[in-house]
């Protein structure tokens, strides 16, 4: 992508006009400033603290911790998800504004980890309650592994189709409507908004 190369290159000082799509620009801005929910669960959260400190410096990815889910772009599930915590995680995720992403960090969040067999209290993978975008393996993952995951997330965000997403949603709505023609009827006086 020529536009992004030009924007990201700090040595390019010749200025001038850059041609590109609006989508590229928006995605570039979004992928380079992901704010995350400051939220830790278990021992992965300890590794996560190291990640935020000056040696590894997560902020160079444009990540700023937010203490409110309403201001966060993505949530990092850093640790063991117990059944008791699963409800809280769902609630936090639902409070986040779209577009939102989930990064599962460590074996526990991916699949239950060491608790996969005898963990009567552990949710075997956070993807059973919320959709996960990037899985980072490790127990806990090294900060370098987390950065790999972070780069993957940035890649995913920068390839997103903002405008086609609406068309896709409209298509999904149409499919739903054809499946249940009666349920999706709007109340009297309402108009359907076409995307």
């Amino acid at each position, binding site marked *: 992508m020529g536009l992004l190369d030009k924007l990201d290159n700090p040595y390019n000082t010749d200025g001038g006009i850059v041609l590109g799509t609006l989508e590229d620009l928006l995605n570039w801005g979004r992928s380079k400033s992901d704010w995350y929910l400051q939220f830790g669960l278990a021992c992965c959260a300890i590794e996560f603290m190291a990640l935020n400190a000056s040696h590894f410096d997560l902020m160079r990815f444009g990540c700023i911790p937010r203490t409110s889910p309403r201001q966060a772009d993505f949530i990092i599930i850093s640790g063991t998800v117990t059944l008791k915590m699963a409800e809280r995680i769902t609630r936090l995720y639902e409070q986040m504004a779209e577009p939102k992403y989930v990064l599962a960090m460590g074996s526990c969040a991916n699949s239950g980890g060491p608790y*996969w*067999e005898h963990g009567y*209290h552990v*949710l075997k993978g956070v993807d059973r309650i919320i959709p996960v975008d990037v899985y980072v393996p490790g127990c806990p993952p090294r900060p370098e592994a987390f950065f790999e995951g972070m780069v993957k997330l940035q890649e995913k965000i920068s390839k997103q189709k903002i405008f086609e997403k609406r068309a896709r949603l409209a298509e999904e709505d149409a499919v739903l409507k054809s499946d249940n023609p009666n349920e999706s009827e709007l109340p009297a006086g309402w108009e359907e908004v076409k995307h």
Partner: protein
Amino acid sequence: MTANKIYEKLKAELGEGIQEFVEMPLSDPFIVVSRDTILEACLVLRDEPEFLFDYMVNLSGVDQKDSFAVVYHLYSIKLNHRVVMKVILTDRESPSVPSVERVWKTANWHERETFDMFGITFDGHPNLIRILTPYDWVGHPLRKDYKTPDFYKGLKVPY
């Protein structure tokens, strides 16, 4: 003071309630105390100037298949000695033991955890509710006959 000596002195003071002294390899020697004497024994161990057990290190439960046991680990910071006591509960249906919460405040959460994991009730505890699992959890997970539920609030539990 060694555990053996503590056992002899306690036996002289409280009599029949102090049942036996068990020594096993790879384990701390422990004193088996009857259910009705444990509160008195704890008070004596805390207050007598020759014992002065001012610190409860741990209180936990054991499922011994035919019975339950509650284990008390005590330490004296002042005199630098330690002792382990065990209460055997043969009633598997409704095991109960007097609470030592008013002897050592530490026991409050330890007893709640033991209640949560084993279903042992502590008589006289001010707030005996679950501490680790959710309040609506069914069963006591560290019992040998515990069956992992298939679902909790619509979430599948087994892998």
